[in-house]
């Protein structure tokens, strides 16, 4: 067993935080959404790896990943719908323009 499970986890963690970084630094709403995909994807990977390495008897991780992919698709769809709506309203999808509501 040369490939330690931790390797996978490190990779997924990096992906996770890359997503977070993207989320808080990208200016375009769609780019932010893309970063979210990274986050979700890394979580999926965690589940799969844990399932495979630690608890292979059941398929809990696998199924969780399966459903998570579905849910992330829903999220994306709704989020994109909203973003498009914003685009219609203000002809622009820059995050900084979402600033009418503030203290």
């Amino acid at each position, binding site marked *: 067993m040369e490939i330690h499970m931790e390797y996978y986890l490190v990779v997924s*963690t990096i992906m996770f935080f890359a997503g977070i970084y993207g989320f808080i630094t990208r200016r375009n709403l769609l780019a932010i959404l893309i970063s979210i995909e990274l986050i979700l994807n890394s979580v999926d990977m965690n589940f799969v790896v844990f399932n495979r390495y630690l608890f292979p008897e059941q398929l809990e991780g696998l199924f969780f990943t399966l459903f998570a992919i579905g849910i992330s698709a829903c999220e994306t769809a709704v989020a994109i719908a909203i973003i498009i709506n914003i685009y219609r309203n203000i002809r622009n999808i820059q995050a900084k323009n979402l600033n009418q509501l503030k203290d």
Partner: protein
Amino acid sequence: MNSAPQEAVFYILSAAIVIFSVMTVTTRRILRSATYLLFVLFATAGLYFQLNYSFLGAVQLVIYAGGIIILYVFSILLTTTDKDKVARLKNSKILAGVLTVLAGAALCVFITITHNFGPTRYVGDEVPMKVIGTALMGTEKYQYLLPFEAISLLLLACIIGGIIIARKR
């Protein structure tokens, strides 16, 4: 999974994931960003295959790579204007982001590495489709009919909602 090629595959895919992830969030062109994301997703699917979760890999390819990325690309094309890329964050904000993210990542990685997960029991077998199918449609423990039904309702609701918001009227 003791063979060298396996390892090589893992390292290549890992490298791809790490590199493309970072590029996804650092490139200033949104379309490229989507493309890099696609690569990341591909690589992830590759890892699933490598872990012998072929079904999952396939789902990943079909839904993520096939479905979601296409959605992204269309909406990007629909909404992008030229001036978008000009927008840049202040360095201080980027720095704060980088530092926080690095701190978080360091914490997580440190804890992950130092954590004792106990003995790993790697079983390299492919999961048969039939097992997956029964589990998905069963009502016993470790079977997932209820979530399956629930997610269908979720999808329905999201579709209705998405349409309501996105349609022109």
